[in-house]
């Protein structure tokens, strides 16, 4: 006689009271395949934990965003935000689709060049550009976005010394009505600093002013804030035209569009609350189109979106190491990945699905990572089927920031696999090992 599938015995006290008007969230649907590739198969081939990226989803996201903006505005250019995910394979997918590169360090700049991006299609942002970075970017005709006066004067000096005429824009910070106000990057709009910087650049023989840039925040939930930002940048561009007789080539609204992840503390899931890209596109393009520029003067609209284009293309697969009951009766599940790999569990209540069919019974649990650290919590509270050692899980929407902000701490960082358009899998970053980890270490003579 065939035995019945086992499920851990479970009891729950029933509480009388008002029903939850939203009902209980169901997260029991197993995710056995990603883009037709078996989760179990990938874990058995590449080991656990494992990051998985879907090339199809990246391309779908990119093409969708481009379509949304290009159907509203004639000149649109996306620049892939390297810091969001700078795996070369990922960057190359975006570049194949037509995206430029947006980088914020010499390291990222070198990666973009290595990925075959032409210098004039690299946007160099951020407060940390040393002299050699600036010279290289200027020689490559890249778009240098000035963050502060020290950088501006360095660039003026370097341009004179090396006979360069870099193409530059300034980053502008402003009050768009959102909190927190990001005023640490760039020049302030309200107090006139941005205009002063533009004047200084416009009067310089060694600099070519080509645009204005802002990046008002991250995981922005208000399209209105982008309308304010677009209006302020248009005002600056209009001022440059009026005062210096020069039309700026582009307005760069930066990134910051959210993914549909659920922020910690949010009352409703991200899928219900996050505005669509259409809403952001409407807010931005309505302002620029209505500002008064002649049709042939309209600046190119540059967008540096990262998270919204990649988050739902990334998955983290893992395995249950153990389950236990805590002193207060709560169930605890220990997974083989934690904060070290899933950095974004500090920000989001990630959706986690079982990777195999389990029983219908569910229980509330806390999910811990494997690190011997109290802070290593993947989900503080989640309702899941009765998991047991060896069960596999799939974490959704992890494509943004995890593969760049992950930490090598206590354990190795996991490999990353790309599922291509034909559903073939490719390792795009190997898992780490002891040799890799110790490669840069040196032992002083007296300790040998």
């Amino acid at each position, binding site marked *: 006689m065939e035995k019945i599938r086992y*499920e851990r015995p479970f009891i729950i006290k029933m509480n009388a009271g008002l029903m939850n008007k939203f009902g209980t969230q169901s997260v029991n649907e197993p995710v056995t395949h990603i883009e037709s590739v078996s989760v179990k198969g990938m874990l058995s081939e590449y080991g656990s934990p494992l990051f998985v990226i879907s090339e199809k989803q990246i391309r779908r996201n990119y093409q969708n965003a481009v379509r949304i903006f290009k159907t509203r505005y004639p000149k649109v250019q996306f620049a892939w935000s390297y810091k969001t995910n700078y795996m070369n394979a990922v960057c190359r997918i975006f570049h194949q689709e037509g995206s430029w590169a947006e980088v914020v360090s010499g390291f990222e700049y070198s990666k973009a060049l290595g990925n075959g991006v032409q210098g004039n299609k690299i946007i160099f942002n951020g407060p940390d550009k040393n002299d050699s970075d600036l010279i290289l970017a200027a020689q490559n005709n890249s778009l240098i976005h000035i963050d502060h006066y020290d950088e501006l004067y360095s660039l003026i000096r370097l341009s004179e010394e090396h006979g360069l005429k870099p193409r530059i824009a300034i980053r502008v910070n402003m009050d768009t009505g959102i909190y927190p106000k990001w005023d640490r990057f760039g020049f302030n709009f309200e107090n006139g600093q941005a205009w002063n910087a533009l004047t200084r650049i416009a009067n310089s023989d060694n600099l070519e002013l080509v645009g204005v840039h802002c990046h008002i925040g991250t995981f922005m939930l208000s399209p209105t804030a982008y309308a304010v930002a677009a209006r302020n940048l248009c005002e600056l561009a209009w001022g440059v035209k009026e005062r210096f007789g020069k039309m700026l080539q582009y307005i760069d609204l930066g990134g910051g569009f959210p993914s549909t992840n659920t922020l910690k503390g949010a009352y409703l899931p991200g899928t219900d609350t996050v505005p669509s890209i259409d809403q952001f596109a409407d807010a931005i393009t309505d302002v620029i189109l209505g500002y008064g520029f002649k049709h042939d003067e309209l600046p190119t609209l540059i967008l540096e979106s990262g998270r919204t284009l990649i988050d739902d293309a990334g998955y983290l697969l893992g395995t249950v190491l153990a389950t236990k009951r805590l002193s207060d009766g709560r169930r605890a599940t220990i997974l083989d990945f934690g904060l070290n790999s899933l950095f974004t569990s500090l920000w989001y209540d990630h959706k986690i699905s079982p990777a195999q069919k389990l029983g219908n019974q569910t229980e509330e649990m806390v999910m811990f990572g494997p690190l011997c650290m109290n802070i290593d919590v993947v989900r503080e509270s989640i309702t899941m089927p009765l998991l047991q050692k060896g069960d596999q899980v799939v974490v959704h929407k992890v494509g943004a920031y995890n593969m760049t902000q992950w930490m090598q701490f206590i354990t190795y960082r996991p490999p990353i696999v790309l599922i291509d358009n034909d559903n073939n899998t490719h390792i795009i970053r190997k898992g780490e090992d002891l040799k890799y980890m110790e490669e840069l270490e040196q032992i002083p003579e007296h300790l040998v």
Partner: protein
Amino acid sequence: MRVRKNIATSDEGFLFNPTTGDSFSTNAIGAEIILLMKKDIPTSEVIDTVCEKYDVDRALFERDLEEFTLQLKGHSILE
């Protein structure tokens, strides 16, 4: 491991404690274990019965049963 005499149980896994007014719900295997416990049979027999019927490693079930028993005691279902 004896279920208190006043605890009302159903085959479907519903439990009611008339003394406290608390009610509980268990999954199918939990209900089956409680019904076995009500028969006052030794623990080893409970384990044998369950392991024979379900696809489970004996050591794993012993561990799960121990934890389940602790929960039942915590809810004052066991004496």
